[in-house]
């Protein structure tokens, strides 16, 4: 695609080139931040609905089952209009409150990130001329592993925080914080040890090995076929020679024999 842009009528102009790079960059940034923006929107909705940052929302058991208790004036809220909700109430889960809400948010965020990152990588592969298939597969593989580990850490933290504190927003906040820290730490490790680059070069090596293996097998097969063809030709020549000799002897014997033939 870079080549197509370059070969377009105005493709050589610096402004066209820089705009094209900006569009690609913006798509990458969008894919990177969409899941977090989604979490931020949920948090903003939650804070907006509860009325303030310090609004009290905690967990209390009724009949052995945990419930979210919301303090303040329910009449002023638009979504969570009650004072007591079951921890698995769809409204509570959609607002990211409690363990179920936080775990759901973490899972959805993780899946969305994998989906958007994969879409972006494929888009980048199609549009960037220098990108290789090994590069795409290697980057996608490490992306999925890193997002998977970060999502797993977030889910484990949500479950753990729900078990140690009664602050209802604790699990969803922990998901966001642990997600950010683990994402950064995993990428730093990747950069430090060049893990993605190693995976890509490993895939390249495997590709080269596979090519040379196929080439060698091809050569062996050609040699074997040639040997078989040689044998067949040799056999045919030998057979023809034997038949010819036998025929000549028979004919000589027939025409040059001193004994009269009986008809």
């Amino acid at each position, binding site marked *: 695609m870079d080549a197509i842009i370059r070969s377009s009528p105005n493709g050589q102009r610096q402004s066209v080139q820089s705009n094209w790079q900006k569009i690609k960059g913006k798509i990458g940034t969008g894919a990177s931040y969409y899941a977090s923006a989604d979490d931020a929107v949920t948090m903003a909705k939650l804070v907006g609905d509860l009325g303030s940052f310090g609004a009290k929302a905690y967990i209390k058991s009724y009949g052995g089952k945990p419930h979210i208790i919301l303090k303040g004036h329910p009449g002023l809220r638009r979504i969570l209009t009650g004072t007591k909700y079951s921890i698995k109430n769809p409204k509570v889960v959609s607002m990211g409150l409690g363990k179920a809400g936080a775990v759901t948010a973490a899972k959805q965020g993780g899946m969305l990130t994998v989906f958007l990152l994969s879409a972006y990588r494929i888009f980048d592969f199609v549009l960037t001329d220098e990108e290789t298939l090994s590069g795409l597969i290697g980057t996608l593989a490490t992306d999925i592993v890193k997002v998977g580990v970060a999502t797993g850490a977030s889910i484990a933290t949500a479950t753990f925080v729900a*078990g140690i504190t009664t602050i209802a927003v604790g699990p969803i906040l922990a998901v966001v914080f642990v997600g950010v820290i683990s994402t950064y730490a995993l990428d730093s490790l990747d950069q430090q040890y060049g893990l993605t680059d190693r995976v890509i070069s490993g895939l390249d090596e495997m590709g080269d090995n596979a090519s040379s293996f196929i080439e060698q097998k091809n050569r062996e097969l050609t040699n074997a076929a040639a040997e078989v063809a040689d044998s067949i030709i040799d056999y045919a020549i030998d057979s023809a020679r034997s038949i010819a000799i036998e025929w000549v002897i028979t004919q000589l014997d027939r025409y040059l024999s001193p004994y009269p033939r009986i008809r």
Partner: protein
Amino acid sequence: MSQHEKQISKPMLYAGLGALIIMTMIGISYFTYAVFTLGKDLSNHSDNISFNKGAFYLLGASIGLASIVFAGIYESGLGHTLSKALGSTITKVALAGLIIMLVLPHVTHYFVSSAVESDGYSICDAASHQWLYSKTIVFTRNEEACRLLTAVQ
């Protein structure tokens, strides 16, 4: 009397709290290191200045996580009941951490960008890197410095 959603065993509690404390420390350490490196590069007017924007997300995240860890230690570790005032303060600190996390990197980016670009630096795309939040922007004095940096990498 408020209760947790699920009671967890003591060894699990200590292991989990330990892991969260380590994560908080990692966040603070990365942030401190990034600020130190940026300050050093800016004051030395280095040929290339590396702005680790990703590390600036970690300050807010660490503050927020620290407040949650504090609530966990207070309620489950020490066995106290969280008072309304303390609960509200912890929630406010955690949300302040969230706001710092969302705002600080972009504000810092704006100021660093303005300062270095007015000093004649430009972004070296080839040496810069981004993966989700983890973003490092490298500014170089000229094209040559950028080329050298990329060649070294």
